[in-house]
């Protein structure tokens, strides 16, 4: 993109079927590349978007394929925001940092790392619970973030 005042939104509607998160990943990857994000940031975004979609399909929409996961990618000059919407009530608790020692001793479930990965990989992450209108995860990556 050429630095004009671009403020565009791309919308995807995905069935709640595991595997379809790859469509959101590919789209987010394409948009981020067009915006000029570095390859490592594109990989971060792909994983974060995939995890947000999987959470929305599994936990929000209970894998009911008739329920849609909405993915909205909003780009501006400095950042890319991705909102992933489902019909659920939102996550019951906040982000849990995995404890590998507990996992390796069978004291903590091996799964349940999605929200942690999302929060770790993007510049901003929030989960908004809105049972009546649908809940969403909101992720933001910024162009001016220096590479790790």
């Amino acid at each position, binding site marked *: 993109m050429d630095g004009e005042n671009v403020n565009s939104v791309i919308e995807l509607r995905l069935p709640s*079927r*595991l*595997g*379809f*998160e*790859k469509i959101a990943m590919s789209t987010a990857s394409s948009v981020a590349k067009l915006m000029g994000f570095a390859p*490592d940031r594109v*990989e*971060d975004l792909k*994983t974060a978007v*995939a*995890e947000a979609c*999987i959470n929305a399909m599994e936990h929000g929409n209970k894998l009911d394929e008739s329920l849609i996961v909405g993915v909205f990618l909003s780009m501006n000059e400095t950042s890319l925001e991705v909102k992933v919407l489902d019909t659920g009530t939102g996550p019951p608790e906040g982000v849990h940092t*995995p*404890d*590998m*020692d507990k*996992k*390796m*001793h*069978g004291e903590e*479930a*091996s*799964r*349940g*790392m*999605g929200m*942690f*990965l999302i929060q*770790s*990989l993007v510049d901003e992450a929030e989960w908004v619970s809105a049972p009546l209108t649908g809940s969403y995860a909101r992720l933001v990556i910024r162009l001016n973030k220096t590479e790790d």
Partner: protein
Amino acid sequence: MAEFSTKVKMEQVKCASGDPITVLRFAGDITSSSEPAVLGTYGGLSPETSKRILLDFSKVEYLNSSGIALIIQLLYAASQKGQTVQTFGLTPHFQKVFTMVGITKYTKIYPDEAAACAGFD
């Protein structure tokens, strides 16, 4: 459209000292539907003859947190059986992710197979 399948190929190689190493070569996707391929293949290994195990991720196209959870289960089972597991072929991104979640405390990550084999010696 569905998730792509997980392929796991098992090979026996020898490290420089001549000790046998079992290599599990993953290909395709590693996701929540990969349990039979990942844990089923691992479960078929004999703890007596497969003391050293290498996980090869070089042909994995897609790995998500559910797939990582399966790898954690494999590492847990291996630790219970006294097996040593080392890893290679992860992209820089997934090396970072493995480090973030703390897996690297239980399996060392190497850039390639030769380095991973040498790591057992």
